[in-house]
């Protein structure tokens, strides 16, 4: 594999490795630092006296008797009821992923199999919708939702997130469906399947990798959303991200910041696991739209 074109002189090699290490520190250090610091008291995490306190936990030791404390987590999860937000987030994400994949696969399949001109215009329309900042749409939702008493509840937010996700889902699934040969469903239909049966029993089973990748991105969009969830959910129904933002709004009394730090780490953990298991799918999803063009 190592062709002559890939051989590097020593100096360049060191430079390359140095650069990669530099980037790795840039990318990973903030997360590790915050993870470590979330087990300290505020005076250590924000240490005016000596930054090494955040590593050794001098004040934490003095206050709690051990170098690590779970006080931030306890405060966030028990006292501030962060667990409710966690449940809400997972409810929202689950239903958003299921719904958007169901209607997205149907729509994406139709777009990839119809040769008429209007499919192009529908895709262009979806692209325009994809470019809309979600917050601009939110100002259109508020008044009707207040009027019809739909504001503040989870189902409304789920449907809105599904709709906002649709353009992206359609594009991604469309490009995955295009890679599946048309002969496959056509021969199924010659054998007597209806269009829907061909889709359900022949196409979907070979589409799983594409469906999983698209599902991942739907999940991330719903999980990471701030604009929609902050505006459309009432205080009791908040998901994680607006909840964390509301921790910051309350006065920065001692300890309260550590609640926010602990909940930030809690909200990042699922994403860590996700990247660990689905790295390949995420990479293929990011490049799906790009490499073909």
């Amino acid at each position, binding site marked *: 594999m190592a*062709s002559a*074109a*890939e051989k590097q002189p020593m100096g360049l090699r060191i430079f*390359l*490795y140095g*650069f990669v290490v530099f*980037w*790795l520190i840039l*990318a990973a250090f*903030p*997360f590790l*630092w*915050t993870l470590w610091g979330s087990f300290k008291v505020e005076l250590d995490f*924000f*240490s005016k006296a000596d930054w090494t306190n955040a590593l050794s936990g001098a004040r934490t030791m003095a206050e709690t008797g051990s170098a690590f404390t779970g006080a931030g987590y306890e405060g966030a999860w028990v006292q501030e009821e962060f667990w409710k937000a966690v449940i809400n987030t997972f409810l929202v994400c689950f239903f958003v992923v299921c719904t958007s994949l169901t209607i997205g696969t149907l*729509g994406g*399949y*139709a777009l990839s199999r119809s*040769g*008429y001109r209007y499919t192009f215009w529908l895709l*262009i329309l979806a*692209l325009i*919708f*994809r*470019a*809309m*900042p*979600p*917050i*601009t*749409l*939110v*100002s*259109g939702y*508020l*008044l009707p939702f*207040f009027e019809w008493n739909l504001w503040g509840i989870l189902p409304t937010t789920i449907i809105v997130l599904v*709709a*906002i996700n*649709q353009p992206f889902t*359609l594009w991604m699934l469309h490009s995955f469906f295009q890679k599946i040969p048309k002969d496959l469903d056509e021969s199924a239909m010659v054998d007597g399947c209806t269009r829907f049966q061909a889709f359900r029993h022949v196409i979907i089973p070979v589409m799983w990798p594409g469906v999983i990748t698209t599902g991942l991105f739907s999940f991330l969009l719903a999980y990471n959303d*701030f*604009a929609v969830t902050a*505006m459309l959910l009432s205080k009791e129904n908040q998901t994680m*991200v607006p909840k964390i*933002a509301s921790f*910051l709004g309350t006065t920065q009394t001692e300890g309260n910041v550590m609640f*926010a*730090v602990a909940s930030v780490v809690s*909200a*990042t953990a699922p994403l860590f696991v*996700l*990247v660990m298991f689905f*790295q390949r799918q*995420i*990479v293929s999803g*990011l*490049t799906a739209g*790009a*490499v073909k063009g």
Partner: protein
Amino acid sequence: MKHRTFFWFFLPTALAMLLFIAMPIVSVITQSLHTAHDQVFIEVENCGPFGCEKEVSVDTEATEKIRREQPLGKWAGLTIYLDRGHLATAEVAEAWRTSADIGSFLSTINNLPFYRAMSFTLTYTFVVTPLLIILGFMIAVAVNALNQKLKGLVIFFSLLPMIVTPLIGSLILFWMIDARGVIGSGLQWLAGDPDLSLKASTGLTWIMLMVYGIWHSAPFAFVVFYAGLQTLPQDTLESAMIDGASRWQRIRYVVIPHILPLVTFVALIQLMDNFRVFEPIVGFNAEAHATSLSWIIYNDLGGETRLLSSAATSSVLTIIGVAILLSPVLVRTWRDFNRKT
């Protein structure tokens, strides 16, 4: 596929987009042309021992009633577009007449909320996008030269800044650059200035937000370019080498032309995404020094008094901005499609 089958397959997703994307746009436009009702005043005559007095007071009941009956408010035409919070035509004209030179004109304009947000949004978009492409490309080239076993690990850590929720990512950095945080105190030590605070100065806040933006989006560019490098034609590379091309010339004349279409792709996507910059401003608590178009909408919508009409007007203006940015993407897609069919 027959039109009929297509229709049924496409119906659910079309309904979702129609009801929750197309209709809200219409609703936003209508809202932006209306404004909240004025309060209804009534005149009451109070007669006491020293004669009668006329008093004007707010008729709460009547105000409530008219607000309930017409929640949109009253027709305002384009007045909200032209008021001080948005395009501020009167103020701009005034500034143009009275300012001595272009510099003082610009600084007056920069105090108007809409133009202030616009200037940050545009600066952010056009500074962050090219820089993240360059950084992404450098990482891709460096990682591509690593040995196979390390690559997976590096890609794993590289994905993190992009995958993590923007608000959470900006909070993590915000805590570190706090004057008492590790980077903040490190910078104080480097600058030899114990009172240095990144949050206190406008320039430093802007730089901080842009550094965050690059950190957040460079992994996307990296992944796309890295995938592009995998399909690099080895023969061309080797023949270039035989012809005596140096390492730099190989990158310049073989690698870069090969991934140029990907650069356009990343640039277009990132222009769209950076234009909606919003969460970092909330996360970095930076609204005193930098606001963006999305942020002023959020600010109008939140709080006790929901300024729906004002937010709607900013939304329409933002949508127009997006449309202008998007036009090259549309042209490109149009060409792609025509080439294929």
